[in-house]
């Protein structure tokens, strides 16, 4: 093992770089595989749901502890308006839930077993400055009958920007990916 003495009298050991090479390669492969899996899910989702600039005007975040989300769990999400506009959501928040099937590499839509009331009453979210009226809690409960083995869910909401005349055609959407614990 080569050694070098320095002025203080201490001895430092020099390690050849090849010892780290294996570790670096393994780490890189792991990162690459994770990124490629994520990329595959993104590509599959984008092809299924073409949405312009999701998660920009509105955002979803998890209120339920991520470690407690199983295939039969109810999931609470925080829906937040981050825009300067008012946004109108349908009673069911325009919710769509998708489950990712690893083998087929496709997202399949699953049903939501919650009934949102009162029917036909839009839910309004104020602009971002009007905390907490720019937020609301969304409850979903996916029915995983056609995607029993799915490990990932994507929950999507969509609404319309409001102006003084009412809802416009400008649609906004947000989605969140949730990992299902076995």
């Amino acid at each position, binding site marked *: 093992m080569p050694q070098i003495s320095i002025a203080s009298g201490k001895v430092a050991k020099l390690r050849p770089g090849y010892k780290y090479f294996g570790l670096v390669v393994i780490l890189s492969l792991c990162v690459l595989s994770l990124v490629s899996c994520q990329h595959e899910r993104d590509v599959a989702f984008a092809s299924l749901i073409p949405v312009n600039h999701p998660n920009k005007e509105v955002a979803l975040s998890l209120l339920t502890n991520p470690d407690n989300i199983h295939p039969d769990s109810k999931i609470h999400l925080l829906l937040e308006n981050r825009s300067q506009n008012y946004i109108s959501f349908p*009673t069911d928040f325009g919710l769509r839930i998708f489950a990712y099937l690893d083998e087929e590499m496709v997202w399949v839509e699953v049903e939501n*077993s919650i009934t*949102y*009331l009162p029917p036909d009453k839009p839910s309004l979210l104020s602009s971002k400055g009007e*905390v*907490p009226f720019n937020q609301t*809690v969304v*409850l979903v409960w996916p029915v995983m009958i056609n995607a029993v083995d799915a490990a990932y869910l994507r929950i999507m909401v969509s609404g319309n920007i409001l102006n003084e005349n009412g809802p416009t055609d400008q649609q906004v959407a947000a989605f969140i990916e949730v990992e299902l614990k076995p």
Partner: protein
Amino acid sequence: MARIRVDPDNLRLASQQLLSIADRLRALGSEAYQITLDAPSYEGQFGPKARAMGMEAEARLRSQADRIAALSEELKARAAAFEAVDLEVLASFERLTQLLRGWIEQAKPILTPYTQIALFPWQKVDRHLRLGYLIEEPGDENGEGEEEEWSSPWWAPMIIGAEKVWSAFDASVGEPIRDLLTGRAEDKGLETDLTEVRICPLITTIGLPFSDVEAKENKWISGHMAFGSPPFSIPAIDPNSPEMKLKGGSPVWWLQVVDLANTLLSDHATANYMENLEANVDFKLYYSTYDDGMRIPGLTVTNNSEVPVLVARVEIHEWDRLSDEIRFVRQSHYIELEKVIRPGELELIYLESLEDHFFADARADVYIIAIGVTSNPQWGRIGWSIDPDGSAISLSPGW
């Protein structure tokens, strides 16, 4: 003589309901007037007539609304009067309690020995005496009849008499008197209960809000949340604002560091403050039970906090059973409320979406989701599980 029972809170609730009806009437009147205002004039005939009708309708509705508002005020005044009487009664009982207590303190040296006699274990003494053959055993001379109840000794009637005297005294004045004399009151915390024991029967209700006369039982269950304005909110500096960017240089970095420190420290302090905040918003969920199920008509929220509270949603999961062991959620409802309750206010919230919904033979888990209207709001959730038999338990809060 008939006993009239009044709950001032219920009167206030009714008063508030009347006020809201008055507001609705005013709004209706205004709407009627607005509608007729824009009525087209066909050859100068229809428009003016419609407007006149609109004005008349508005005037009538407004006068009705004023009358209802006046009634509401009257009801509030009555509630205050009842409360004043109640307080007076309470004060009277307080005085009576003080009087009794004083009397008991004075009589204690005399009465205590008598009480001790009353507590004297005469049966035990009697038994020991008999075991020592100091007193003859009951039954025949051959020792038969041991199973029979022993007769009391000659001195027993005196002791039993004392027992009876105290029982009668306790029944007429209140249970704690005897305990006070024997020094057990403090252990049981009865000193403060003495007034309550007497007052409680007076404070009963005419009927619960949302109550249904046809129901088997009208009940409620309560829960609490804590909301407060975080005292440590620091005005945020936005280092990315155009003005800051124009200035450029190292101050921007310093501001960013200070802002980050502020955020971290104030978040920590706020979390600590919120954890130690006492419950200050009361939720009462009302339900009516019937022979074949139950209904959940609404809830009341009393905001005793210093911040407005937004009661956003109610979440209901209705259970069903396949067998005693197998139960499943039959359906779930997620109801939008979006009611803001200001500090110090009490609000009745009708679950109109569930007005016609009957929970037949099924347990229901009900959660309320609310948030304080503050600069750093935190969402909260509390819940109960209600059985159609009328029993209810609190569910663990949180998500």
